[in-house]
């Protein structure tokens, strides 16, 4: 309202509640007009460990509360939603219809395909069950964006580690459309929240050849590692716990796309190499098998066996 109107209101107020009444009405109207659009999000968990939603809970600036109030409308999430049972199922079904073509489908976990996908049932209804395989296909066809959070959803990850008896695959192998792969085991919450922010403010982010946002995954860990001078001087750690280059201890940095050395973890305090241990390449397409054994130097890693090859 105009300043003069407001002052007049204050001066004219009688000893009843008419002032606050009219002010509240106006404030509400103003907020409604300027209401920021938030991203409608449906979050589906499949064959996962839940580590990504746990990492997400530790996001700082924005904190979780700010993500919920400013950035996303989390319409469905097995971990977070207050509703339960058939109420939750109703909410899901209505959200898919109401936000068709608008919502972001976040998938956390790999999709088991063997035995008709029975290794993961997302919801049991009165007469039938909804497998993760069916749920991803159903939701994926109506989503505006599909975001795979974590390496399991992106590429199969530990859920698909050999021998993979459940036939787990990443979401990209189940959906015939582009999937944004925010990989990591777990993700650094910044990568996920940052991707959501990009979708909200600027739309689809620039992706690398494996569908990962370049904003976070363009450079390898090795490129910006603080121990690079040790590597370049061939000054390698003799054991885990040393301050020198972790390449000798199995570090996957040279072939791992991620900004961990810059970004650090949990309010930016530390990361595996700073903690005197090797990077195990958790954002990579072939994690964990391609990084195994974790403490064997990269050239000698042998994903098919457990023996160290020195």
């Amino acid at each position, binding site marked *: 309202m105009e300043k003069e109107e407001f002052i007049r209101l204050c001066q004219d107020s009688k000893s009843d509640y008419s002032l606050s009444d009219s002010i509240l009405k106006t404030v509400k109207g103003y907020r409604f007009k300027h209401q920021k659009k938030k991203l409608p999000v449906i979050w589906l968990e499949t064959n996962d460990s839940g580590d990504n939603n746990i990492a997400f*809970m530790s996001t700082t600036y924005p904190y979780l509360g700010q993500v919920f109030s400013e950035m996303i409308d989390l319409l469905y999430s097995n971990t977070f939603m207050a509703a339960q049972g058939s109420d939750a199922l109703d909410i899901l079904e209505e959200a898919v219809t109401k936000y068709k073509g608008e919502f972001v489908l976040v998938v956390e976990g790999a999709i088991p395909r063997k035995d008709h996908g029975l290794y993961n049932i997302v919801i049991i209804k009165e007469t039938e069950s909804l497998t993760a395989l069916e749920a991803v296909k159903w939701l994926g066809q109506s989503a505006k964006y599909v975001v795979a959070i974590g390496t399991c959803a992106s590429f199969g990850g530990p859920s698909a580690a050999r021998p993979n008896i459940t036939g787990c695959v990443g979401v990209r192998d189940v959906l015939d459309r582009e999937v944004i792969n925010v990989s990591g085991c777990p993700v650094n919450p910044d990568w996920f929240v940052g991707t959501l922010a990009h979708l909200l403010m600027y739309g689809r982010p620039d992706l690398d050849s494996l569908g990962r946002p370049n904003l976070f995954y363009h450079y390898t860990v090795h490129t910006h590692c603080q121990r690079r001078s040790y590597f370049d001087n061939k000054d390698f750690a003799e054991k885990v716990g040393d301050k020198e280059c972790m390449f000798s201890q199995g570090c996957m940095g040279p072939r791992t796309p991620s900004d961990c050395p810059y970004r650090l973890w949990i309010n930016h305090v530390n990361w595996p190499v700073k903690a005197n241990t090797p990077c195990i390449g958790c954002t990579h397409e072939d994690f964990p098998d391609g990084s195994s054994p974790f403490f064997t130097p990269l050239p000698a890693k042998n994903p098919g066996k457990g023996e160290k090859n020195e």
Partner: protein
Amino acid sequence: MSRRKIVFSPVTRLSGHLSIEIVVDGGHVKEANVSSTMFRGYEKIMENRHITDAVYLTQRICGICSLAHGATASYLLDTLYDNRLSKNAQYLRNIMYGADILQNHLRHFYLFCLPDYVKMPDSPPFHRQNLADARLNPEDNQRLAEHYFEGVKASQKCHQILALFGGKAPHQHSFLHGGVAVGPNADNISQALALLQEVHKFIRMFLLPDIQLLAKVYRDYFQIGITPGHFFSAGLFKFGAKNEQNLWPAGILVNGQLETPNWELVEQDITNAWFQDKDTPDPYKKRAYTWVKAVQYAGQPLEGGPLARMIISGQYQGGSSTMDRICARGLETLLIAELMDKWLHKLKPGKPPLQQKKELVREKATSVTDAMRGVLLHRAVVEKEQIVNYKIITPTMWNFSPKDRYSQLGPAEKALTGTKIPKPELLFTILGRIVRSFDPCMSCATHVLDIEGKVLAEEEIF
């Protein structure tokens, strides 16, 4: 009320996938089948890998109790290699473990439990909460609803303490066999103390008063969701150069008798689990309803978790109800924060307390310790440092055991069965409160597959 069959699915606000098939008859729960519906086959995944991969790999069984697996695998490796842990390593490991337990307990109460008793704001993800039986007055309700987000922040600080020493969370890097790869110094100790101080303040000023308020206003839940109270614990917080002591003792408490556990007496029953035999998953098995194999101790279902620990260590006096579980978890949260403060002051600045021997002294070991929700067991058979088989039994397998071949109920099903449902619209609310008091972690409960291949005659029944 006539007999009805209802499916409670999904059970939200927990870790993993859980559904419950219920039969209600005459206003009471006649039957409850707790159904875990996710399977990965983690024991199979562990085979044919280098044994030192166990710490990082088993952590990925679960994100909310990650370090519990890392710790148990580290202790197991310590036994296989005959490592000796320095005092610094002992304190630092327990500080890190404590931090992950605190993170879990804070998230359990505020993110998972609270919306069962407190009306949350009607915006996502709390929209259409449909909370039947909300009893708090508007002022108390508002205060607790605001504490939800403060609780999130406090739990983030716990992860930050863990990351200061562990590199990241979840799935930390430096708690390994032989000790910890990060050395304590004035910098990380003082940061950890500062974070802990804020967490401790939050526990005293928010968590405990909030739990006390719920315990008062919902005091009938001391009579709801009751189990027989057959508790057990593997002990928590290992000390000693060979991890041989537990600060909080191990024990089995059945019918008032306290005994020392003998882990050889653990058995599994696949009657109602989706397994054809010990080794082969069978998602089509007709009478089965869950991926969890029933786990028992000498034929006895047992209950683990903070309540079990607090009762066995004599730090909590109470029953075995829904509200007892919540109160005991709150008490444990305070106790752990205070222990961590003590331990941080005991650290001596210095090099990373890590000494990893390189030669195996044995080819088989079992490691048992309490995790957030109860007893966690890892057992490995190795050959030249390669895993031949790796068995994992998690706390939630015990608490969420399905009926065995004698139709004996596990703790969660026992707690649910017989519950009075005064009105149909209260069903999900009441059962949700009971189930969540156990802090179920279904990611942990359902990865298992039995030992395959070479099994010696004297091997355990499972």
